[in-house]
């Protein structure tokens, strides 16, 4: 990558983006979640990410399942269509919507119950199809909306509010995503917007499914001592493996990346181009890292987790994989908008065809 001018400076607040819009145009209705809920911070990060990308608000489809997390599409992008569907089934609804209209930017918001229990199958299949979707799991280790039961992401030994330990092994969406072929895998923390916003922007730009697991504490049911999904525990064990930034447009790159292929030595960086030409700049944090190598990513995540740390950052990206439409070989135009004349073969074709059935 060539080097050039200064990277974009994001001024939250009343700064205007390329469309002349402030972040206000990306906000939604007042949240009805508990004060301090991690999910509200994710919403705020999303607002910032969408604003910084200057995406036309009404060109976004907000998809969700059911849960406190799945309510959040109401709290951002008031000018976007959204579909708050049924529990665990956001991926299917998003798949259908995306099939009908591939031009919209799809953001799927889900919870750990929504995605790792009832909707585990659908999540895996959306990954398998590489649906062009930013897939957020607002992960709090519990079912918030049904009042705090352990979810499938609860760690062994983590304690419920009443002190009861969880005895079952968790399903880790990052490991799962890496092992079944997700083309973009990241983990963030609702309490660290600086890290989260660039992950979200890169995820939106990624062609395919961008799986982002976000530790998003539930202040009401899972933020106590003994919980491994509390703010405190997450802050204490949070360990960025990479730092990623979306350079967009790429000519804003300040200096040449030191590494072009292969592992990045600690402290150095490497640029990876996405399909639309924008660039994700990775910086390896503490140890050597190759964000385009699935095996390395999985091994590092495992190693850090075994040490009791919570590896975070944009962990893996495969920018070249085809998405669901590539597999289906569908036309460029949104299917819903095709003129009827292009869809209906007409009466002559039908009467000719009848010969085949005589």
């Amino acid at each position, binding site marked *: 990558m060539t080097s050039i001018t200064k990277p974009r400076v994001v001024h939250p607040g009343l700064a205007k983006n390329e469309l002349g819009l402030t972040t206000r145009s990306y906000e939604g209705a007042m949240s009805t979640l508990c004060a301090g809920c991690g999910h509200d911070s994710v919403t705020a990060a999303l607002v910032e990410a969408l604003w910084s990308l200057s995406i036309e608000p009404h060109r976004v489809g907000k998809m969700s399942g059911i849960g406190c997390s799945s309510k959040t599409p109401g709290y951002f992008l008031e000018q976007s269509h959204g579909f708050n569907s*049924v529990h665990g089934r956001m991926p*299917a609804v998003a798949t259908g*919507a995306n099939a009908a209209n591939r031009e919209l930017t799809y953001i799927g918001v889900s919870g750990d119950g929504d995605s790792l229990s009832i909707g585990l199958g659908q999540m895996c299949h959306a990954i398998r199809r590489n649906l062009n979707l930013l897939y957020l799991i607002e992960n709090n280790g519990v079912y918030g909306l049904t009042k705090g039961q352990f979810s499938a992401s609860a760690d062994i030994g983590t304690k419920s509010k009443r002190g009861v330990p969880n005895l079952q092994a968790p399903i880790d969406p990052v490991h799962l995503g890496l092992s079944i072929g997700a083309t973009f895998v990241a983990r963030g923390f609702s309490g660290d917007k600086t890290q989260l916003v660039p992950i979200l922007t890169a995820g939106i730009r990624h062609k395919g499914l961008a799986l982002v697991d976000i530790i998003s504490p539930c202040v009401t049911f899972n933020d106590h001592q003994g919980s491994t999904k509390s703010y405190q525990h997450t802050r204490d064990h949070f360990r960025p493996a990479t730092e990623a930034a979306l350079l967009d447009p790429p000519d804003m790159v300040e200096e040449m990346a030191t590494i072009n292929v292969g592992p990045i030595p600690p402290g150095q960086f490497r640029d990876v181009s996405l399909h639309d030409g924008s660039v994700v700049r990775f910086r390896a944090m503490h140890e050597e890292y190759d964000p385009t190598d699935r095996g390395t990513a999985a091994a590092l995540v495992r190693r850090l987790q075994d040490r009791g740390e919570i590896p975070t950052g944009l962990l893996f990206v495969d920018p070249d994989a085809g998405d669901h439409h590539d597999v289906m070989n569908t036309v460029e135009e949104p299917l819903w908008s095709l003129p009827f004349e292009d869809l209906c073969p007409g009466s002559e074709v039908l009467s000719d065809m009848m010969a085949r059935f005589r």
Partner: protein
Amino acid sequence: MIREAPARVSGGGTGAGRRGKADGRSATGVRSGRGVNDFALKIATVNGTGSASANGLIMKSIFRMGAPVSGKNVFPSNIQGLPTWYEIRINAQGHVARTPGFDVLVAMNGETYERDIAEVAEGGWLLYDSSWPLARELRREDVNHIGVPLAEMCVKRFEGSRIRILMKNIAYAGALAALLDIDLDVIRGLLEETFGARKRHLLEANNTAIDLGHNYVTERYDCPLPIRVARPAGDELSWEGRILMDGNTAAALGCIYAGATVASWYPITPSTSLVDAFGKFAGSMRKDPDSGRMRAAIIQAEDELAAAGMTVGAGWAGARAFTATSGPGISLMSEFVGLAYYAEVPSVFFDIQRVGPSTGMPTRTQQCDLLLCAYASHGDTRHICLYPGDPAECFDFAVRAFDVADRFQTPVFVVSDLDVGMNDWAVPPLQWDPAYGPDRGKIKSAEELDRMDRFFRYLDVDGDGIAWRTIPGEHPLGAHLTRGSGHTKYGTYTEDAEGYTEVVDRISEKIESSAPVLPEPVMESVPGAEMALVTVGGCEGAVREAMDRLGNSGLHFNYMRVRGFPFAESVREFLAEQKRVFVVEQNRDGQLRSLLTTETGVAGASLEPVLYYGGLPMSAVHVVDGVLARLGAGPAGSPAPARTGAVA
């Protein structure tokens, strides 16, 4: 035209040349007669041996000769090795509903010899493979035996085990052609069309096999038999000009013609062939000529939950989207059906019914999801259903389903079944009105939204119970959050009684208001008749034949076949006018009867169930026996048994 040509018997049989009645049935019983263009044929084979092409060849040849004919495939839930049957009925009056009891039986499956042979009507003919002797205890004195050494001939004539097995089937087709007087030129023409120049060797083999069978029986038996096929002449009923098509193929074509662009599905018999056909048609009719890319997305989902979710998602995003499944799939889809109902998302669901409950008998037919579809999902729901009775209606109703779904912004079920969906029916050619344009219902375009200053998704601005919708991505003013949770007419979340009730009441009115635009019931009033037969779907043939027979005994009935739900007012009126109504359907619990009772307010006691649910297509005998049993048992309302589930 009738040539008297009693068969010489290969041995044992004493029924040679017996014609006419004499099958032991009452005047209103199984068959009206036996003769030229009036008989039933059954072929018993083993699944996976390639008999389907031989059976199709016979069926299509008879069809091409213009004789009214039907073919029913009775197949197992198995890929190879289990018994399978193909039944062909020819009837000069056009009564081609399935009939139990057969005049000719081709016994190619040793394992089912005994039960197959038992099904031959007295005086009928049994064609068997005489490469091996037929066990003495299997011989029936009252049946004519026609032994043809099919295996032996094919082993001698062909090389390779696969081709020998395949050609053995074609050889019995040749034998049948001689016995039943099926035009050899028609058969050869069909083979030429199938194999053409590309598969010359197969064409040759097939023609040789036809000759083997044909020559063998011509040399040894008086051919043709008194029961045989003839081209209808003079004012005889001819089905020339019709097409032979199954309902799933027709429905798939309907989806193509209606402009459906998203299909999501999960494989399940008997619906799979619908999506397969859609894919095949799309491959040629939906390929962008310039880019070679598809103007349709066909998604094999991970399960029916997902298939339904994709359909609803695509409908929400503005596409005409559908899924096809069978009962088990509808069970899984129900949560999404409720969402689509309450959030008012157009979506089309094909239910090709099969025998339930649970996995039931997956390759047998029933009409057992009538209630399930009408009220699918939890909460107060009620869904528009269309009930096609044959493949021509499958085509028409598929198109109408999309129009109705768009117009009323709701899920619409096309409730078909295995018999209608998978069997070939001879129907008039499908036609397309060039003036047709899709009714996309009330959608505010970007231009219209540009001129508005407020938009509310669920506001009944026109007073017709249907609110305007918008397509995602088109205009910021049209944006709203679609949800399955409580919402007001403004689209906002609510847990408030009034705001909630207002919306669900409007939806209820909206669904009710669809009744007059759904396919109207087929009705027939017979002068002087005070009783009626009421049915649904593919039972029409059996019921009409039963009406003819009952009429011969002086019992006259009015007739109605419902084709849409919610029921039109004319359905209620029709029922109310009758002294007694017999509701004929294929399920154990009288689901159509329940639906009619609940929905029309006509007293349940005046609607009497006549049921067959054994898994094969309904026969006239089921109707006749059921009605006679009820009439014999006394006045309407008496608890006479009218279930004929035990009859084959």
